[in-house]
């Protein structure tokens, strides 16, 4: 019943209310009528009866005294106008009937005449004495009709009808007012709400037309709509911001509704996965859904198989406790570049590790080779010119020099080669080497040079630059066994920050590029990824050392440059060597032509921790005529210098030694011996020393292993053209 009422429209509720109130009012009216009847009607009837009796008595008293029964009857007959009087009887003083009025045959009055009033069923009986001058002259008995309430009710019908009519009119009036002031505004509100929901027009406002609850409701509705509109705007802004953020981050958000049971509909997600990885991705996502956990996975994206793209999914299962439904929410991101960078980083780290290993080995080898070559020269000098052993020894020396070349290449790759950077004009270098390049590649290969119009130069060890160029040319030749075209190109390259980010180890800036391009067989990406590794080669065993490109890589990197390769199988390969461009600066004058190995008379302080190297070096110097003071460490060198009777003319020192570096020793010695020339000899230059600035144009360096002639030349040059401390 309650539920039924709640479902009814307000108008019907009010109608019901009014109906109920009317019925109640009618009921109350009925009760009131009954009460009124009981409390007012009977006394009124009694009063009326007494008045009537009084009238009859007054009119009949004379007739009674004079026994005029006709007069009495006439008198009583006037009661005809009072239908409620059932009967009236006059008695004389003795109680005998004198006159009687009973138009409808009313019951006889009670015979013992006792004055008083008594209500009998349906009537009121009134008996009174009639007296004159205190003497009894007769009696009156009056019967007054008091009909039961139910018979009198019709009298109240009019009253009830009036009440009913008033209530109905009031009800209809109220309904009309209700329609105007309640239902209509409510319907307007409902209509506005419907329109807003359908059209999304949140600027819609309902004008409040009253200050009552409906008006308040309208205002609250308007406020709510405004709030919702503001929230919508904020939501859209947030959404746009989020979309922008996702866009910038190259993120693509997705949502997947998961069914309560049954397999998750992964098709939309799997459509982005390459067929090869689809099964694995489906399995991983399925597992994450089962565990209600998050997942992150990378896979090859569906699409053009020639261009491999990688995508990462990051997702999480969210369960809505309110609805009991689950959703898989996540983002997709193209991680191809990231992966490439990561792989490049791994590659460069691997190269670094290999370099460290190779450098260490080469260092020790150099010391050994220095001794071998040194002692070979002693042996050769002592042997008579025509001994057959000399040829064998020459072979030994050639092998030793090949070993030295190998370690040198290793050190180049490891960036531990002693370098003497200078300003180099790339165009001049290419032009100068072109004839040699033509010879190197043979007649089947056409050599084209394209030189950029530039006045810039690069800072690099010129000999190393030549090594790099010739190495690349040799590789190009090998890639074109049946001939082709070789292009040597220089050009200016500006590396922007964005471009630099795509290349590992690259720094933005101005570069000069030396490009070596062939039309040969080309390389697969897998080979391209490894070509700079030492000992990696595609050539048949014995045809290459696997160190050529590794060396090029090391040299270029040591000069803060980049070496890039672009290749396509069957189309050819292009190597680009990018070197930081230097402001226009006159290139170092070509090394002076050294005089032939010249003996010397000066005193040399030789500092070398390796006894073999020290011994062979000392012996070469002495044979050249130098006076040699030997020391195995920097500490010893100082004490030797302090104790030396003669003047020390030159310091020849190893760079890296336990107990103190050659650099420190040189600094200390030049303090006590101003103008003392210093020659560093080293198997490699440790990065730390390079960064400390020990190596610069004015310092003389001697690379291990060195020949007796190289040692003689270097010393002579240092003694005759003392380096200015810089």
């Amino acid at each position, binding site marked *: 019943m309650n539920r039924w009422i709640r479902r009814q429209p307000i108008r019907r509720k009010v109608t019901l209310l009014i109906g109920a109130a009317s019925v109640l009012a009618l009921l109350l009216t009925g009760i009131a009528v009954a009460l009124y009847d009981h409390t007012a009607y009977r006394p009124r009837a009694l009063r009326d009866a007494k008045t009537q009796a009084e009238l009859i008595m007054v009119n009949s*008293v004379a007739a009674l005294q004079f026994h005029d029964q006709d007069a009495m009857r006439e008198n009583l007959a006037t009661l005809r106008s009072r239908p409620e009087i059932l009967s009236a009887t006059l008695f004389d003083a003795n109680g005998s009937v004198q006159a009687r009025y009973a138009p409808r045959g009313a019951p006889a009055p009670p015979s013992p005449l006792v004055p008083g009033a008594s209500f009998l069923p349906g009537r009121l009986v009134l008996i009174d004495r009639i007296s004159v001058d205190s003497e009894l002259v007769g009696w009156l008995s009056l019967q007054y009709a008091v009909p039961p309430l139910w018979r009198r009710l019709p009298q109240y019908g009019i009253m009830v009808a009036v009440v009913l009519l008033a209530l109905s009119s009031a009800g209809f009036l109220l309904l009309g007012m209700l329609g105007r002031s309640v239902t209509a505004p409510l319907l307007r509100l409902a209509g506005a709400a419907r329109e807003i929901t359908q059209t999304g027009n949140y600027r819609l406002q309902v004008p409040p037309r009253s200050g009552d609850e409906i008006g308040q409701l309208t205002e609250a509705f308007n406020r709510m709509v405004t709030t919702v509109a503001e929230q919508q705007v904020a939501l859209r802004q947030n959404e746009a911001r989020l979309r922008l953020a996702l866009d910038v981050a190259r993120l693509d958000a997705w949502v997947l509704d998961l069914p309560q049971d049954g397999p998750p509909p992964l098709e939309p997600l799997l459509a982005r996965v390459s067929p090869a990885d689809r099964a694995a991705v489906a399995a991983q996502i399925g597992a994450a859904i089962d565990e209600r956990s998050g997942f992150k996975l990378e896979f090859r994206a569906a699409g053009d198989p020639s261009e491999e793209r990688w995508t990462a999914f990051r997702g999480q299962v969210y369960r809505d406790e309110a609805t009991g439904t689950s959703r898989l929410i996540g983002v997709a991101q193209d991680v191809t570049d990231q992966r490439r960078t990561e792989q490049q980083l791994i590659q460069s780290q691997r190269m670094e590790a290999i370099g460290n290993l190779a450098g260490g080995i080469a260092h020790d080898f150099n010391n050994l080779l220095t001794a071998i070559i040194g002692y070979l020269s002693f042996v050769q000098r002592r042997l008579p010119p025509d001994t057959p052993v000399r040829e064998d020894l020459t072979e030994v020396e050639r092998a030793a020099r090949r070993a030295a070349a190998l370690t040198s290449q290793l050190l180049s790759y490891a960036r531990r080669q002693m370098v003497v950077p200078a300003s180099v004009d790339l165009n001049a270098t290419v032009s100068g080497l072109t004839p040699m390049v033509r010879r190197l590649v043979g007649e089947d290969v056409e050599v084209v040079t394209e030189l950029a119009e530039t006045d810039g130069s690069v800072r690099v060890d010129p000999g190393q630059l030549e090594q790099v160029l010739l190495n690349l040319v040799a590789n190009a030749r090998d890639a074109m066994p049946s001939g082709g075209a070789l292009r040597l190109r220089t050009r200016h390259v500006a590396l922007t920050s964005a471009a630099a980010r795509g290349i590992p180890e690259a720094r933005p800036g101005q570069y000069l590029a030396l490009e070596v391009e062939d039309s040969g067989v080309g390389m697969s990406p897998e080979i391209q990824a490894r070509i700079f590794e030492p000992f990696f080669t595609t050539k048949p065993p014995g045809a290459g050392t696997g160190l050529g490109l590794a060396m090029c890589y090391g040299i270029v990197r040591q000069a803060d440059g980049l070496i890039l390769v672009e290749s396509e199988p069957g189309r050819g390969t292009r190597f680009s060597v990018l070197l930081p461009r230097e402001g226009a600066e006159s290139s170092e004058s070509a090394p002076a032509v050294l005089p032939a190995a010249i003996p010397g008379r000066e005193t040399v302080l030789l500092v070398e921790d390796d006894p073999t190297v020290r011994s062979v070096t000392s012996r070469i110097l002495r044979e050249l005529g130098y006076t040699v003071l030997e020391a195995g460490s920097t500490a010893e060198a100082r004490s030797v210098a302090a104790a030396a009777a003669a003047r020390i003319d030159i310091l020849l020192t190893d760079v890296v030694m336990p107990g103190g570096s050659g650099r420190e020793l040189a600094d200390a010695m030049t303090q006590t011996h101003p103008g003392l020339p210093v020659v560093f000899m080293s198997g490699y230059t440790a990065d730390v020393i390079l960064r400390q600035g020990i190596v610069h144009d004015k310092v003389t360096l001697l690379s291990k292993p060195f020949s007796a002639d190289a040692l003689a030349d270097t010393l002579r040059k240092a003694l005759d053209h003392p380096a200015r401390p810089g």
Partner: protein
Amino acid sequence: MIRGVGLLLALALMAAQAAAQDTLPAPDQAVKAAYLLSFTRYVEWPAAAFSDSAAPVNICVVGDEGLPDVVRQTIDGRRSRGRPVRLVRPDAPAHVGDCHLVFLPARIQSIDRWLAALRTISALTVGEGAEFLQRGGMIAFIIREQTIRFLIDDQAARAAGLRISSRLLALAARPGSAGAPP
């Protein structure tokens, strides 16, 4: 049962009346005596007719023949409009000065004389027979349908300064209709 008791009571009353008539005067005289008293209750005398508010109403009965005794018995202890009632027996017309009501029986010879003597005072004159009114009387007993009724000449009463109540006038028989004197 009640009806039975009522019947017994009625029989007892009738028995009492029958017993009373043996010693009491004739019914006519008793009725007339009672009527005389009743008349005084419906007539208004001029204020000068009474010396004060407690002064008695004097009913004068001329002649004898037992009526005066009946009247005396009838009025004994009764009052008219609050005043005591007294029987006066004037022996001559000159002695009617105190009378408020004078009954002149038809038997007496000098009715006209009495009436003439009464013209000077405000007294209600009551006689017998319709001709009493023609003589100048005010109320006359007559017999109609075996009961004692009366005629009234209101003009005469007014002329004497008396006001007869309309209630009494209404009970009076219509003049002119036949009626023998009692």
